[in-house]
């Protein structure tokens, strides 16, 4: 939980400081970005998309971890699970641990689809540039760099999502038995 917030704030700070430096022409960062458009757009895509993927990456990672621990026999506190799923309703503690995992997974679902949709838009944009439908030049390089930078957190979200889904499913089966 703490690592998630720390990383999120670091990325937001990097983004804000970077954009302030560029927009106000401090440190000549804008000139560097113009000289290396592919690196600049890659970093913007990586940091910008990671800010939105952060909750998903830590959510699915934490879910997979605690579900795997539960399968090995550790009993996590129901309060902790609800806190991580950001569900403050105490009544939900009556549910079994595996159902709380399923609830946590369900909470992350809308974030996942919003995130995938944003990545899809960037991907389509890069594709149109790649097919020369929107013109070429620096804009095409920037669009491709942005898409590749965004693809890194997206791949993490994809893999962790599959992993968490597997462990939640086995936790539900484990509880039934």
């Amino acid at each position, binding site marked *: 939980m703490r690592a998630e917030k720390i990383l999120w704030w670091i990325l937001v700070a990097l983004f804000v400081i970077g954009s302030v430096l560029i927009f106000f022409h401090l440190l000549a960062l804008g000139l560097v970005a113009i000289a290396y458009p*592919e*690196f600049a757009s*890659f970093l913007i895509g990586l940091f910008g998309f990671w800010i939105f993927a952060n909750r998903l990456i830590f959510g699915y990672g934490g879910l997979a971890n605690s579900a795997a621990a539960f399968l090995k026999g550790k009993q996590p506190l129901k309060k902790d699970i609800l806190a991580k799923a950001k569900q403050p309703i105490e009544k939900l503690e009556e549910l079994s641990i595996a159902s709380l995992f399923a609830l946590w997974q369900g909470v992350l679902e809308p974030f996942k689809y919003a995130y995938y949709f944003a990545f899809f838009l960037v991907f389509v944009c890069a594709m149109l540039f790649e097919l020369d439908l929107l013109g070429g030049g620096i804009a095409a*390089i920037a669009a*491709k*760099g942005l898409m*590749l930078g965004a*693809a*890194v957190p997206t*791949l993490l979200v*994809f*893999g962790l999502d*599959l*992993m968490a*889904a*597997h*462990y939640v499913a086995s936790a539900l089966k484990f509880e039934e038995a």
Partner: protein
Amino acid sequence: MKNPAGVLVISILLAILLGWVIGSFFTETSISKAIANIPASPIVVEAKYNKDEHSIVYSIFNPGGMPETIVQEAFVFKPGKETKEKAYVVSNIPVHITLPPGETTEVIMKLKTGTEKLHLGDVVLATFTYVHPLSPDLYTVVHPFEMGSKQPQKASKQAQKTPSSQAQEQQENHEGGKK
């Protein structure tokens, strides 16, 4: 997905692919940037004699990433056995032809007016002087053009050809000029 190992394999394969794409993307952009800053030597890909205009049309390819400008042309005419024309030199023809990067440009060089049309075996040694934006120096390309031999690779075969085939080739050249 039932198997965590399957998830791992899929994720690792995707990660390798993504890393590959990102690496090649950065390599590609840096290489294209480096190439864009190299002025290359222009290559004369083809030279054709236009009989009606009494000129030679050179197709010059600029393989580099920088535009180059031909600022001067000069040529030496060496007569072959079949012509009565005497050798002559024309130099310092000022021109201003830009060769865009990565493209083939046609450059027309008019031969001296009033001279006889080219015959088989006549040689025109053309010199193109060009400049590029990186330095004030002048560079030259010298291209020998022999009437009747189309390409330099064929030059060795030319010697073994029978007179009839040479006559045929001359006819081809003649037709090409009319087009």
